């Protein structure tokens, strides 16, 4: 079994028995798409909701360009769209808003939420169903996607472990 690590603004596609991993999602979102019949899966770690439209953009950085790219790589690897489903993780609000200071950190505060919404929108466009999610709240998460069974394990900094 090999661990394939996906960095920030990065994505990877592999098959069983590999595990796809991405570390320390904060306000970023990790998108896990899995075809259980072929045991092929992909993981994308996006930073921002929408691309700027510039040709120099890293497509893997933005929800609206990374998800179509992930889909085409999955299909190229042999996964079938009709068997695919998604699990999404991350989009936390890492810093609490200061109520007495509402002009400032508010833009930072809503980034996670905006990322989650953009990911859901992009998946809807691809007709991929989200079957589980662990998003929002205020803590970081690491993600491990086991391609032999599609189970996504989410770990936090303080030792909590959740399976999706």
């Amino acid at each position, binding site marked *: 079994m090999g661990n394939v690590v996906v960095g920030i603004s990065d994505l990877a596609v592999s098959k069983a028995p590999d595990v796809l991993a991405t570390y320390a*999602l*904060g*306000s970023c979102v990790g998108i896990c798409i899995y075809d259980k019949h072929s045991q092929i899966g992909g993981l994308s770690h996006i930073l*921002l909701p929408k691309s700027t439209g510039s040709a120099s953009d890293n497509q893997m950085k933005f929800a609206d360009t990374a998800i179509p790219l992930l889909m085409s790589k999955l299909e190229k690897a042999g996964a079938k769209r009709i068997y695919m489903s998604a699990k999404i993780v991350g989009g936390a609000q*890492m810093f609490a808003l200061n109520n007495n200071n509402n002009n400032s950190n508010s833009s930072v505060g809503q*980034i996670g939420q905006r990322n989650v919404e953009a990911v859901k929108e992009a998946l809807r466009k691809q007709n991929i169903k989200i079957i589980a999610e662990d998003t929002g709240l205020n803590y*970081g998460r690491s993600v491990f996607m086991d391609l032999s069974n599609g189970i996504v394990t989410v770990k936090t900094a303080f030792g909590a472990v959740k399976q999706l």
Partner: protein
Amino acid sequence: MVQYGEFNEIQIDVLKEIGNIGAGNAATALATMMALPIDMTVPKVNMLHYNDLAALLGGPENLIVGILIDVMGDLEGIIMFLLEKEFTHTVINNLLGSAVEDFSQLSEMDLSVIQEIGNILSASYINSIASLTGLNINISVPAIAVDMAGAILSVPAIKYGEIGDEVLLIEGAFIGNTEAKEEVSTKLILILEEKSLNTLMERLGVS
């Protein structure tokens, strides 16, 4: 327009010098607060990719304290302090006289002390930039988070993700002038909006 990743050598030197002056002021402020003589090594100032920054902080999953401060006024951007275990322990133990045993279980009091340190250190940075340039700059109340380094860094990475993937890192080592000669290091990142970066360069005559 100056863009991140397109600085010339002179401009990088200017940013480094600002880092130096700010760090000097910050060390003085810290020494006063902790009532300890504190020496400071010459800070290291670098432009760094987020991935390398996470590695420098012990890896993306390493637990750190992040203090986020918004910069407003003539310059807009953020300052973020990244405190590792040792620095946090030293400060809390010194100021509260209590031994922090578990980094993941910092009390409200501990966090409020750390937040105040962030406030004072960032104010001394900003003051040094303000007095050097004559610009009017304000800072917000600090927001604090204790979590994985990568998760904390995702906040500035996202907020300025359209500008670039590199940040200005100012790394200072403070040496407590005690018997143990404890050395603790602080890491601070400064990110300015492109427009503000240009304002700063213009004021300093290197645009």
